[in-house]
């Protein structure tokens, strides 16, 4: 279970508070959507969960399965099962996707005290996961994300997620820059990974994604705090009325 308690976050080199007492609980097996206007702190939340530099937690705590993770390095969190699907996945020239993934998977396995996978075992695993998600694994022969289309980048993120088998998946605007077909493939991938042991935090601007990934709960994030929580119908409501109500409330 993910528990975020009264989380206050500011930028490390600026005196600007972005999250102002955010509290949120996501039980295992559930998918929670975070929706909100631009600048409400959605991406900050994703980065702080993953442990990116440049943010300072001034108050509050983040617990994953009862353990505080705010002092952990990003790779320690990854080993604890935290995965962030990036809004803009980074390109790594010269490093084949397969090399990247094998290095990552073995690094995580090592930290979890599991044996490293041999190359044949790894390749078999990649093939299996790719087939299951209907994602062509050929793109993993190319350097990581280099020259990938928007759709390919997001598919690659989902494939990475499937391989690393995280227990807390944070999807940061995974729908941005996707056409309908790509959106469907990505959503189906996510749905295939839904599991009673796995929690999802899906961050999005638009209700559209939630037609494909049906959330258990929808939270409205505005001005650094959760302003409202509801069922999936809340997303439809927002689609109609926009965020004005919440930003006004915040102001």
């Amino acid at each position: 279970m993910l528990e975020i308690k009264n989380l206050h976050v500011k930028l490390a080199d600026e005196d600007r508070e972005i999250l102002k007492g955010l509290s949120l609980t996501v039980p295992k097996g559930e998918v929670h959507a975070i929706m909100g206007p631009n600048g409400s702190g959605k991406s900050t939340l994703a980065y702080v969960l993953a442990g990116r530099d440049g943010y300072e937690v001034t108050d509050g705590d983040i617990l994953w399965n009862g353990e505080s993770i705010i002092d952990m390095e990003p790779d320690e969190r990854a080993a604890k099962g935290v995965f962030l699907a990036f809004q803009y996945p980074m390109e790594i020239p010269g490093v084949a996707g397969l090399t990247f993934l094998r290095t990552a998977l073995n690094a995580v396995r090592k930290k979890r005290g599991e044996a490293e996978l041999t190359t044949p075992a790894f390749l078999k695993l990649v093939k299996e996961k790719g087939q299951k998600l209907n994602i062509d694994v050929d793109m993993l022969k190319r350097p990581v994300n280099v020259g990938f289309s928007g759709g390919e980048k997001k598919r690659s993120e989902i494939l990475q997620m499937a391989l690393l088998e995280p227990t807390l998946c944070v999807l940061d605007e995974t729908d941005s820059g996707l056409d309908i077909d790509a959106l469907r493939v990505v959503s189906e991938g996510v749905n295939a990974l839904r599991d009673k042991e796995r929690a999802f935090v899906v961050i999005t601007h638009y209700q559209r994604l939630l037609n494909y990934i049906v959330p258990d709960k929808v939270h409205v994030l505005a001005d650094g705090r959760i302003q409202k929580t509801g069922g999936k119908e809340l997303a439809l409501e927002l689609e109609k009325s926009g965020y004005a109500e919440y930003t006004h409330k915040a102001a």
Partner: protein
Amino acid sequence: MAAVQETIDQVRKIDVDQYKYGFETLIDSITAPKGLDESTVRFISAKKGEPEWLLNWRLEAFTRWKAMTEPTWAKVHYPKIDFQDLYYYSAPKSTEGPKSLAEVDPELLETYKKLGIPLKEQEVLAGVQGSRVAVDAVFDSVSVVTTFKDELKKAGVIFCSISEAVREHPELVKKYLGSVVPQSDNFYASLNSAVFSDGSFVYVPPGVRCPMELSTYFRINAKQTGQFERTLIIADRGAYVSYLEGCTAPMRDEHQLHAAVVELVALDEAEIKYSTVQNWYPGDAQGKGGVYNFVTKRGDCRGHHSKISWTQVETGSAITWKYPSCILRGDYSRGEFYSIAVSNGYQQVDSGTKMIHLGKNSSSRIISKGIAAGYSQNTYRGLVSAHRKATNVRNFTNCDSLLIGDKCGAHTVPYIEAKNSSAHFEHEATTSKISDDMLFYCRQRGLSSEEAVALVVNGFVRDVLQQLPMEFMAESQKLIGISLEGSVG
């Protein structure tokens, strides 16, 4: 390069005894006095039992050297070297080395462990007393040595120390020594010509494809040859040879100054591939100590359709001053230069190449990858030139620099001189930084910050790594990762 005790013992039996005329037996008892004058040169030559012509050759070099001044154009800074304060022919270091691994710098041992070097080999590399097997004799298995000697002999390939070549093949040495890098070439090459201790000699006869990669690993040599090493490789008409120099393991070495000379000669349709992995002591975290590496390496594509290819992975030394070059004399000859230069801490690298196009339709390719971290300075300096009569020559140059952190520097200094209008020269250069975003992406996937840097850097240098022989590729990959440890906070 896993060596086991048994291997080393066997090698000792097989090869050191055969080396009884060599350098090893003399070195035990004799040290030349400090400083350098004509008598030092005579002393070295006499100790090596050299013929008159070679002594005169050395003396001529020494006369030239005295009239020269140290070059200052490179972007490197170091205190002035007192050439009279050095030993030019000294006693073996076994009397000064640590007595056991327990006395060796633990950091060095840690690095050995990471590279997966066996214990016995670690002793040799660290210069532990009693490890009488020369560093150059570190190799995989003894069968390599025996089969290798037989096979080379069958093929007619000569591969021996340069001292041995002077004795056994004087006509070849006389003909080619100094024909690529003359005694008067530059300050350090002249110094080397006057006082060179030993080095490798390779001759591949016409039409012969050398049946294996030649490596300094395979050659038995005395320990003290490193300082002023002299290498001469000749590929006769239609011959092919691939030569590996160096070692991925860091070597303990009390010499600060290294001034080697390497000469390559490729005759008609011959090909030489020369690969180097250099990992000398770079100095401590404060930039104290470390080897000064002032090397002159040059290949002469003397015949038509000849080819010389340099590949280097440079991670060590406090100062690197090195420009492996090709003189493309033959028509349709080809020169290649692939380089990875990694600098960290307070290291200074000024390295690059020269492609001198003299022959018609000659072509060259330069791929240089510089990686600077810490407080280091990393400079690519290269010359591409086309002679007035060298028509239709082509060059492609690609210089990429990668910066890690904000205290280091990367510099590119290309010189391009086309003296006729048919030359086709291309130059590409990029400078990039490993971004925090890229590292975060890797770390989010589970890589530690060091693993992340190693991965990104290995991607950056992949084009060049692929040029290395297989067994060196994997080791070099590891080595680059280790060299950059601690480069990100």
